[in-house]
């Protein structure tokens, strides 16, 4: 059993009075892929965006309970958002390259994180692009605008950009929902290889995807964590009737 990367205890998440996530307790082990599945509005994306405090931007957002990453409470007063987000990277639903060149997309954030020498930034960027399996496709046009890449390439660029910061955890919010099947497969293979170095938390609408790539799956419904188990077990032998209904397609 690996170390625990993320630890939630009685975690509730509110938008104003609305309880979007209801008193969840779960442990996510490091160097694994954990999938969060469930129908739209079940709170899985909310939970994911709470892990790097992206939800802080929402005015009436609040959390209750305990949420620890690497044993440290991330909603404690005085937590540095910048170092938290450096440690917990994120890949979004639709590819969102920055309005700059391919290479600058990867190096832009590094400068602020204390990597002053541009040669060093360049080396990290090349390494990250290779890691994300994009290098061979872009090495001869690094100065091209990132928006010229295809959707799948853009998403891999976003992954390269995130891993350039050497995070411990990588949050992926339906990273393939805007991509075609071939690009989806490449991202999925990439995810599996990434778990050697990172802890991946994946939100997916697609149950086949969750079954294919994840080690553990959490099924959420209306803000509740219904079932959380090893992926094989959850899909072959669900303990809860609602899980069974969902994975067999009876609702959602």
């Amino acid at each position, binding site marked *: 059993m690996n170390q625990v990367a993320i630890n939630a205890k009685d975690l509730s998440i509110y938008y104003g009075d609305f309880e979007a996530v209801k008193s969840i307790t779960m442990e996510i082990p490091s160097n694994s892929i954990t999938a969060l599945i469930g129908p739209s509005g079940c709170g899985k994306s909310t939970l994911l965006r709470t892990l790097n405090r992206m939800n802080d931007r929402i005015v009436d957002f609040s959390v209750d309970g305990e949420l620890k990453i690497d044993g440290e409470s991330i909603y404690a007063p005085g937590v540095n958002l*910048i170092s938290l987000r450096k440690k917990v990277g994120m890949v979004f639903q639709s590819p969102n390259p920055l309005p*700059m060149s391919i290479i600058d997309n990867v190096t832009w954030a590094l400068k602020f994180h204390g990597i002053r020498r541009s040669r060093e930034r360049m080396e990290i960027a090349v390494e990250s692009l290779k890691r994300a399996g994009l290098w061979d496709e872009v090495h001869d046009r690094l100065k091209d605008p990132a928006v010229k890449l295809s959707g799948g390439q853009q998403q891999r660029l976003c992954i390269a950009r995130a891993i350039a910061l050497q995070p411990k955890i990588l949050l992926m919010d339906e990273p393939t929902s805007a991509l075609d099947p071939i690009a989806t497969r490449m991202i999925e293979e990439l995810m599996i290889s990434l778990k050697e170095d990172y802890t991946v938390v994946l939100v997916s609408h697609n149950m086949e995807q969750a079954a294919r790539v994840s080690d553990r799956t959490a099924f959420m419904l209306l803000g509740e964590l219904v079932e959380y188990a090893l992926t094989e077990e959850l899909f072959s032998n669900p303990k809860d009737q609602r899980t069974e209904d969902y994975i067999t397609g009876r609702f959602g």
Partner: protein
Amino acid sequence: MNLRRKLVDKTMTLIPLLCVIATIIPLISISGYLLYQGISNLNWAFLTELPKPVGEPGGGMANSIVGTGIVVGLAGLLGIPIGILAGIYLAEYGQQTRLGKTVRFIADVLLGVPSIVIGIVAYAVVVVPMQSFSAYAGAFALAMMLVPFLTRTTEEALLTVPDNIKEAGLALGQPYWRVVTGIVLRAAKAPIFTGVMLGIARIAGETAPLLFTALNNRFWHQGLTGPISTLTIQIYNYAISPFQDWNQQAWSGALVLIILVTLLNLIVRISSRSRYTQR
């Protein structure tokens, strides 16, 4: 039935086309007539010489051309940074705050204030204390028109930047100021420049705010604290004068003004084209 459908389709295409033509006609006829009237007097001397006394042929508007450059340039120096920074504040920091809403409201009101009133304010605030008409006073008046315009156009430009690329920056552990300067401003560069250009073109063509601020000058200006000639005022003076040759020179002045504004527009438009944003 099929015939009717085609007929409706054709008519509906025709109506906007007619509207386009109706929009273009004034533009073409104005520039055409301006060219026709102005070109005859437009020569090297017109661009390089001072006005001649009444009755003497020749002479030019060199002092007015330079004067417009100076007054508009000073107004830009003062107004562009303030306007853009205020726009950034409105879009990125004070969107829903009370201060933000107040600033936005005041900017909108200021946009609607007749330019002659702006001139009076500049007269009271700058000319009276300085005891002199001056380039500074003219620039102050024009900047007062430029600031609210740029504030609003910059705000609008920044609001078109999709939220997901801001989130990309934040998720990379960047502070908000760096997301604003590194991503949002970069993405909105072209529309901000367009706003600056439109603003400059607008104030370059203003006459009323300069009437009793920059005043006018038939000679080269003596420093920025004294009266200075501008193209618009010079055109106005020459156009209402009873002398035929002055009237004719007013046309040439107007042509020069239009050409300058168009050139400025073209240059910035070409240089601000962004490679890194879609569209």
